């Protein structure tokens, strides 16, 4: 199918299926997550349509799209303000199970990810193992047909909504730290699991700490070989870093900033967008975003030719997040003192009251705050630069 034809089809579908409430949830996103209920409602709609897992092979329930079609779909969803789907099951665990899971695991878990029956969270980071993930210490010790899991995971996004968690656990202390790690699937309702919410700086709960106290996990829930979990983990991390297409986000941010800069006036009473100094700053960010857009196109070309983007995914992650943060800063500047009202309730899709300040300023401060996390999660900007230095420059 021609690209334009496909795009039209996607647009028609989005027009028909995205209710005003779902769009509202998308518009009110101030981080990578949207309101949970809206997210799952949209998930089910896409599932019905057969479009919920664009990156999965057709035999496992994917729509069988090529790379261009997947880009187009992602782009159109974002431009239409669809709430973002949770990536943990669809984009992280799913492809990983397809690559490393047993037939039983695939047959059991994949359909439940597609339907939304299972909601997964990711148990990687620990209080003592962040950038140095391989030093993780949550242990899984064999006890008959089970593992006994003890320890704690942190920054577990949406654990409070999840019924399952995929975890990196230590099964051996022999050899280098990477060698003794295994990949386990765990039911969140297993006895011995406790979930503590972590309140973020914007007042909302997206992150949790998950505690494991002698949690029994069947050995059948091991993915890949015991002590071979690191290669599975790395596959996922590369996905987490490079699997995002920043260009669409930047385009949306550009449009948003332009709207704000046209509506708000500078101290001389002219719209910010006509203020030469501010224009220059906008252009500076937009040019960097354009350069990244063409870089992403080069990567897409490499993917289509069957190559692995490798460490280039670190480039897009660093530049994509840092450019995005600069857009946030410019929006803050334009909104001036209207960044100050803390209106947590007004960010919920079902809010019907009156807001303080202009509508186009409502999410600005929360976005500025929350997006600081983007240069921390999925490998910090410092770690990514290390990867480029080591793997690309061979320093």
């Amino acid at each position: 199918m021609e690209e334009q034809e496909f795009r039209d089809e996607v647009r028609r579908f989005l027009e028909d299926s995205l209710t005003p409430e779902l769009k509202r949830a998308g518009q009110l996103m101030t981080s990578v997550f949207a309101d949970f209920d809206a997210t799952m409602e949209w998930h089910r709609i896409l599932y019905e349509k057969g479009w919920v897992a664009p990156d999965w092979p057709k035999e496992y329930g994917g729509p069988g799209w090529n790379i261009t079609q997947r880009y187009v779909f992602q782009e159109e969803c974002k431009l239409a303000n669809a709430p973002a789907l949770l990536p943990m099951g669809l984009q992280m665990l799913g492809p990983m199970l397809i690559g490393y899971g047993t037939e039983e695991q695939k047959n059991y878990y994949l359909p439940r990810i597609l339907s939304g029956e299972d909601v997964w969270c990711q148990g990687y980071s620990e209080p003592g193992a962040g950038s140095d993930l391989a030093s993780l210490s949550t242990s899984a010790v064999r006890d008959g047909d089970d593992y006994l899991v003890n320890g704690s995971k942190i920054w577990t996004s949406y654990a409070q909504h999840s019924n399952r968690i995929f975890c990196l656990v230590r099964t051996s202390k022999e050899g280098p730290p990477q060698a003794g790690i295994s990949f386990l699937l765990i039911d969140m309702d297993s006895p011995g699991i406790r979930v503590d919410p972590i309140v973020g700086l914007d007042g909302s709960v997206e992150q949790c700490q998950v505690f494991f106290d002698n949690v029994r996990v069947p050995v059948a829930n091991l993915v890949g070989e015991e002590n071979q979990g690191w290669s599975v983990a790395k596959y996922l991390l590369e996905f987490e870093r490079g699997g995002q297409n920043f260009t669409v986000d930047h385009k949306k941010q550009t449009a948003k900033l332009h709207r704000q800069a046209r509506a708000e006036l500078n101290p001389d009473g002219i719209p910010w967008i006509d203020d030469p100094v501010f224009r220059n700053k906008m252009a500076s960010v937009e040019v960097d975003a354009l350069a990244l857009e063409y870089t992403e196109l080069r990567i897409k070309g490499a993917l289509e030719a069957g190559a692995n983007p490798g460490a280039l995914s670190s480039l897009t992650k660093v530049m994509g997040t840092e450019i995005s943060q600069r857009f946030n800063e410019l929006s803050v500047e334009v909104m001036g003192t209207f960044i100050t009202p803390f209106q947590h309730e007004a960010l919920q899709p079902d809010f019907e009251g009156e807001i303080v300040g202009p509508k186009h300023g409502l999410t600005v401060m929360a976005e500025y705050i929350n997006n600081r996390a983007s240069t921390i999660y999925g490998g910090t900007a410092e770690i990514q630069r290390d990867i480029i230095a080591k793997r690309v420059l061979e320093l």
Partner: protein
Amino acid sequence: MHIEYTDEQNMLRDSVDKYLRDNYSFESRQAVAKSGEGFSEQQWRTFAELGWLAMTLPEEHGGFEGGALETMILCEAFGKHLVLEPYMETVVLTAGLLQEAGPDIHEKYLAGVAEGRVQGALAALEAGRQSSLRHVETRAESCAEGFKLSGSKCTVFNGPAADVFLVTARTSGDAYSAEGISLFAVDAGLPGLSRRDYPTYDGRHASELWLDGVTVPEGALVGEPGRGYPVLEKIIDRALLALSAEAVGAMDSLLAATVEYTKQRKQFGKPISRFQVLRHRMADMFMEIELTRSLMLATAYKLDQNADDASALVSALKAKVGKSGPFVGQNAIQLHGGIGMTEELSVGHYFKRIAVIENLFNSRDFHLQRYMRLTCE
């Protein structure tokens, strides 16, 4: 020119710091921030008892005649300990503006401010044009009783607690003209005055304010009619020093917390403070803070001397804070990692306060341009 804290100033600095260290923990601050009050009445009374509120007020109203340096010292400590109490709003802005008024107004409010009984708020900004203090559409018409005020104001910090609002209203001139702006002391509770209160991201409270034919007596006029803007500019220079000093104090705390955290946080088998990229980042944070501090000290000195270049220094300082503030705040979070993004740790709360400060009374570009205007023309 002496550009360092004097012994006397160091004593004041140490005593303020000591009180806050012992009596103003982050945990108690958070409890107050979440209480819906915006600040602690009890702390405010203690600030009065300690003489902090009277520090810069005239002697005949119980004050100590302090100047910009004292304001700076207090606000630096407030920033360091993330103090919520509305010192800038009530003492620097409200009392500062009221001192420009006649003796009747002094009598009415200043002793109350010094004793911690009177709270104030500046109501100068208007929605849609909130980046300019010159943009005033609120009108003040002469009437038999004095003046009748009509219009609306946005971003009135400390609005919910204010006993008196300092309101800008136009007695003549066009919307953006500096001429024709008058200042009025408007008592809270007057008929025709209404508010919508809201919490702010930095743990305080502010209001939108509506004036629907609020009648005030002739004596409520602060300064000359139509000549309010230069008065406002003068006092806002003081407020900019206060805010910048607060930012310096906050940056000090952020750097201290970051240095401490990176020394104890171990990854890859060693404290992360051993990684050169992080060491250099913290060295850069240090340099930014010290440069800002130098401008802060110089600005306070110049303001106290009524120097010709005092306003240029004020803008240089605020512009510098607009660069060092986000740099230090953002990197403090970055170097803390995930924990820096949580409500539990103070780091993010300093970050949020700095973000608000950056945007109060205009951000960096405005002050860079004002600096050039004041120095080149």
